[in-house]
C-alpha cells in the first residue's frame, strides 16, 4: 500500500458550469480528492445531480477541471490533443445504455476494432493481429466463440450481449482502468449479475482497476473494494465497502442505506427508514456550513443542538476528505457523538495514505 501510486486520482478537483439562464455558477464538483489504485474497484455513489457523472467525465478528460488536477499514474494529465489521446487509451469509458453507445450500422467487429484504429494500432485492418485482438477482447468480455459475433449488428444482440460488446471495445486497448457510468442500470435483473461478475473477473485475473459511478449501493456491495459517497459536489464519506455500507457514520450515507428495501440497517437499528425530504439540491446555491445541513436528520431532530454543534453545522465548512484508502467522514456530528468516537473527520496525512506529498514526489 505504501509504495503504490494510484492509476487515476482527482486532486482538489473543481468543475463548474454557467447555470441555466445565465444566473450564477453551478459548482458540480467542488473540491474532490479521489484515488483509484491498481487492481482496485471504487464505487462512486450519490443521487442524480450530485456531480458524480461530471466527476467521472472530468476524470476521463472530457471536461477540463476549473481547479485542481487529474493525475494519471501520478502525472498530471496534459490537455493537449496528443496528451489526451494517450491518456484516453489507458482510461476507458463504459456507458450506461449499450443501445445508445453502439452505432447501429457498425458490426460488432467494427465497434470493437474502432479503438484500435483510432489509436493507430492498425490502419484499417492492415495488420494481421487486429482480428486476433478483437477476438481476444470479445472473449474476455464473455462473448465466446468470438468469431461468431464478428458480423452481428447491435439489434441482433440482447441487452447483456450489447453491454459486453461495449466492454470489449474498452478492453481492446488494454487499458489500466475502466470508468463505468451506471454499467448495469439499463440491464435486466438476471443479466446484471453476469456483467458485474465480468467486471470482478477482469479485476481478479488482469488487475484491471475500475471506477464505477452508480446510485446503486447493492452494486458497490457486490463488486467494489472502496466506496465514496458524494453529495452536492463533495465527497462526504469514503472508505472500505464493508465499513461504509455496514457501519456508515455520515447521516446522508445512513439515510441512503436505510431506504433500501429489506435493508439490514433499518431492521437492526429498529428506527425504520430515514426518508429525506426534497430532492438533490441546487449546485448553484450550495448551503453555508455543512452542505447537507438543510436536509440533515441530525439537525432537524434537534440532536445537533443537543450536541452543541448546530452553529457549526450551519456555519462552518468541513475539511475536504483526502482520496486515500482509510475510512473518513465529513460531518460535525461524528466525533462529538458518543456513538462514534474513533473516526475523525480531520484528514491528517498518514504515512502511506497522505496522497498529496507522495504525488509531488513522483
Amino acid at each position, binding site marked *: 500500500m505504501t509504495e503504490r501510486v494510484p492509476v487515476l486520482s482527482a486532486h482538489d478537483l473543481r468543475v463548474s458550469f454557467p447555470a441555466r439562464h445565465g444566473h450564477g455558477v453551478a459548482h458540480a464538483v467542488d473540491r474532490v480528492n479521489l484515488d483509484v489504485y491498481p487492481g482496485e474497484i471504487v464505487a462512486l455513489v450519490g443521487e442524480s445531480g450530485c456531480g458524480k457523472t461530471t466527476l467521472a467525465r472530468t476524470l476521463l478528460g472530457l471536461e477540463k477541471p476549473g481547479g485542481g488536477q487529474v493525475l494519471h499514474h501520478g502525472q498530471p494529465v496534459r490537455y493537449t490533443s496528443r496528451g489526451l489521446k494517450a491518456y484516453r487509451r489507458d482510461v476507458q469509458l463504459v456507458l450506461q445504455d449499450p443501445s445508445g453507445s453502439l452505432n447501429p450500422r457498425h458490426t460488432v467487429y467494427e465497434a470493437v476494432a474502432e479503438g484500435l484504429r483510432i489509436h493507430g494500432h492498425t490502419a484499417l485492418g492492415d495488420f494481421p493481429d487486429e482480428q486476433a485482438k478483437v477476438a481476444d477482447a470479445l472473449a474476455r468480455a464473455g462473448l465466446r466463440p468470438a468469431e461468431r459475433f464478428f458480423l452481428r449488428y447491435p439489434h441482433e444482440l440482447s441487452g447483456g450481449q450489447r453491454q459486453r460488446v461495449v466492454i470489449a471495445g474498452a478492453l481492446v486497448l488494454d487499458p489500466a482502468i475502466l470508468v463505468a457510468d451506471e454499467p448495469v442500470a439499463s440491464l435486466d*435483473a438476471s443479466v446484471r449479475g453476469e456483467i458485474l461478475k465480468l467486471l470482478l473477473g477482469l479485476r481478479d485475473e488482469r488487475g484491471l482497476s475500475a471506477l464505477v459511478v452508480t446510485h446503486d*449501493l447493492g452494486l458497490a456491495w457486490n463488486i467494489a473494494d472502496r466506496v465514496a459517497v458524494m453529495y452536492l459536489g463533495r465527497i462526504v464519506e469514503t472508505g472500505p465497502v464493508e465499513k461504509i455500507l455496514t457501519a456508515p457514520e455520515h447521516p446522508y450515507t445512513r439515510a441512503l442505506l436505510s431506504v433500501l428495501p*429489506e*435493508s439490514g440497517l433499518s431492521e437492526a437499528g429498529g428506527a425504520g427508514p430515514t426518508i429525506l*425530504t426534497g430532492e438533490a439540491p441546487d449546485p448553484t446555491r450550495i448551503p453555508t456550513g455543512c452542505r447537507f445541513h438543510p436536509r440533515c436528520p441530525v439537525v432537524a431532530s434537534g440532536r445537533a443542538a443537543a450536541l452543541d454543534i448546530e452553529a457549526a453545522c450551519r456555519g462552518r465548512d468541513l475539511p475536504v476528505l483526502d482520496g486515500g484508502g482509510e475510512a473518513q467522514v465529513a460531518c460535525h456530528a461524528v466525533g462529538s457523538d458518543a456513538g462514534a468516537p474513533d473516526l475523525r473527520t480531520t484528514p491528517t496525512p498518514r504515512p502511506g495514505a497522505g496522497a498529496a506529498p507522495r504525488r509531488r514526489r513522483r
Partner: protein
Amino acid sequence: MTQPGRAPEARPDKAPTAQLLDIRNLTVTYRTGGGPLPAVRGVDLSLAAGQKLGLAGESGCGKSTLAASVLRLLPPGTTTTGEILLGGEDVLTMGWSRLRAVRWAGASIVFQGAMHSLNPVRRIAHQIAEPILLHDKVSETLAHERVAVLLEQVGLAAARASAYPHELSGGQRQRVMIAMALACSPNLIVADEPTTALDVMVQAQILRLIGDLVAAQGISLLMISHDLAVLAQTCDRLAVMYAGRIVEDGPAHQVFTDGRHPYTRALAAAFPRIGDPSSRRAPHGLPGDPPDPTALPTGCAFRPRCPLAIETCAHVDPALSVAGPGRAAACVHVTSVPTGGER
C-alpha cells in the same frame, strides 16, 4: 390471503367473485411483422379489494402487457382471449362508453417515465383536472379545488399547480401522475414501474406515498417492477412472471425470502442485501438471456437458464401447483423441494 393454490383445477367453478380484479386464463398475442408474438400465455391472477399485489419479472416477460390489458390499452390488432373481471364486469367485452367510464374512475394507471406520459405544453393543474371534468361533470372551480387537495395529498405545494412538466423534477412528475391516478377515486391503481427512473431517496418517497394513499383510501394496487425487493416491501402478495406465465405466487415476504421457483430465487438474489456476506464480491446472475417469446424452448420455458433443470423439464411444461399455504409455483421440483428452499 384469500388465495388458495392457483392451479386451474383448484378454482371453484365460476363462483361469484369477491375479488376486485379477477384475470382468468388471459392470453395476449401481438401481431408483428415477424409473425404472432405471444406476450401473455395463460395467466390467472386475482386481487381482493384493498389488497396490494406485486407483479415481478424482466423486460419482455409480459408484465407490462398484462397491466395494459387490465384497461384494454393494447394496440389494435392484438388478440386477447380469456376474461378480465373488474368488479365483476369483463373489461375485454364491455362497450366503448362503459370502458371510458371504467378507465380513470374504476381503475387508473401510473406509467413509468412520467415525462412521456404528461403533456409538455399544458400546466399540471389542467392535466389533473381533465379526468375530473370528464368523469364527474363538476364545475371547473370545483375541479380545481379537488386538484389542490390532490396536490396536497401527493406532497406538492399548491403553487406548483401552474407549473409545466419540464419545470418539475422526476420525482415531482411522478407525484403528478399519482395525483392524476387518484383524481376520480378509482378502486384499483395499476402502477407500472412507478419508480424505475428515480433515485433511491425519491423512490423511497414515492413508494411510501403510494403505500400510504392506497392504504388510507382502501384502493387496491397492482404494482409492477423488476425489483423483487421493492415489491416485497410495498405489497402483500407477489406474483413472478417469466415468458408470459406466472411461475410463482404467494405472500410477498415468503416469495421474496424463500422462493419456490428457481427463477424467483435468482431474481431475489440479483439485488443483494447489503451486509449479507454471501453476496459480497459475489454478484448473482443467471447465465443466458431472457427468452425470445417467438421461439420458446420445449417444456419449461425457464429450462435453458435453470440451474436445477433435469431431463423431465425438456418435455414437461409445469402448471402452477400448490406449494404451501397460499402459495403456488410452476416447477417440477416444487413437490421435491423441501420447505426452506435453498436460500
